[in-house]
């Protein structure tokens, strides 16, 4: 059994497609699992969608469609909103203190990031006796890097892709030239974007 924890990027990309949405769709349909998020996730997602709407990148109708779909997933319990109340504060503080930036190695864990990581950590602690795996799903590199060393919590970067030529797995950077990291392989995505995406990655946990 797997308990997934989504951040706002994962929620937003479930509905507004880009690289990584194929991975999120597989997680959405993953057997014997649930998807959970703290209450801040739909709020951050709404704010980001509204910014796109204000800039004219998506229409008001598209914004409304995305909202209806998100609300529907919450109403039918597909996405579960969780609240740890005051427990968040001490855990998030500990995580912010532990995951301070290291130039060239690790990015800074920001305030909102720590809420997602705290959610995953608290769930993992509570579910530990049952053997349930807790996997934090994000495309935020700072959050991903901070989750990796946390005991009992696993992390999945949903931009993870697999080279269709040699099978090498990698995490690309969106809109940058992406060359397969296998030195013997010549496959490249120029640039890395949904229209060019040929990833063969199949999510398996």
């Amino acid at each position: 059994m797997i308990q997934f924890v989504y951040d706002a990027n994962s929620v937003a990309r479930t509905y507004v497609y880009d690289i990584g949405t194929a991975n999120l769709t597989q997680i959405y349909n993953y057997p014997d699992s649930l998807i959970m998020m703290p209450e801040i996730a739909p709020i951050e997602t709404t704010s980001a969608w509204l910014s796109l709407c204000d800039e004219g990148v998506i229409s008001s109708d598209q914004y409304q469609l995305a909202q209806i779909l998100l609300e529907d997933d919450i109403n039918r319990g597909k996405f579960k909103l969780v609240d740890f109340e005051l427990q968040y504060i001490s855990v998030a503080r500990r995580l912010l203190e532990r995951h301070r930036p290291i130039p060239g190695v690790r990015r800074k864990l920001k305030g909102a990031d720590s809420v997602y990581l705290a959610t995953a950590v608290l769930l993992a602690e509570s579910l530990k006796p049952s053997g349930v795996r807790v996997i934090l799903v994000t495309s935020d590199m700072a959050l991903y890097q901070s989750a990796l060393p946390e005991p009992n919590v696993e992390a999945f970067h949903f931009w993870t892709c697999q080279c269709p030529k040699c099978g090498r797995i990698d995490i690309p950077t969106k809109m940058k030239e992406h060359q397969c990291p296998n030195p013997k392989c010549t496959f490249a995505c120029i640039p890395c974007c949904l229209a060019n995406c040929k990833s063969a990655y199949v999510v398996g946990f």
Partner: protein
Amino acid sequence: MAAVRKIKAERNGDIIIPTELARLAGVMPNTEVHVVVKDEGKIELISEDAELKRASTLQEMLDVLERRGEIKLHKPQKSKRVLTEQQRQMMHRELNESLRNKSLPLEEIIEKERQERDDSVCL
């Protein structure tokens, strides 16, 4: 299990049980157990780990955590009608059709907003 029957448990909940009772119930002394009141006044004592392990689905485990007060879950609004799978697929298509060849900077917006929130707290 005579000692067990002496407990006046009127509702389900957690208690710390005394050593003798723990021995009879087969759980560790002074550990927190969950009391389940059954029919005809019979009660059942379950240790916390066992209760979680006994749950057969993830949802049942979350229900256990919620009952213990470890988490609070948002309850879906049952009065609201949910979309059919066909409606959902149609809405997904409609939402993304014109965006197919665009790369929208959603992640960058979320990252920027998080950074701005942090930066706005100036000392």
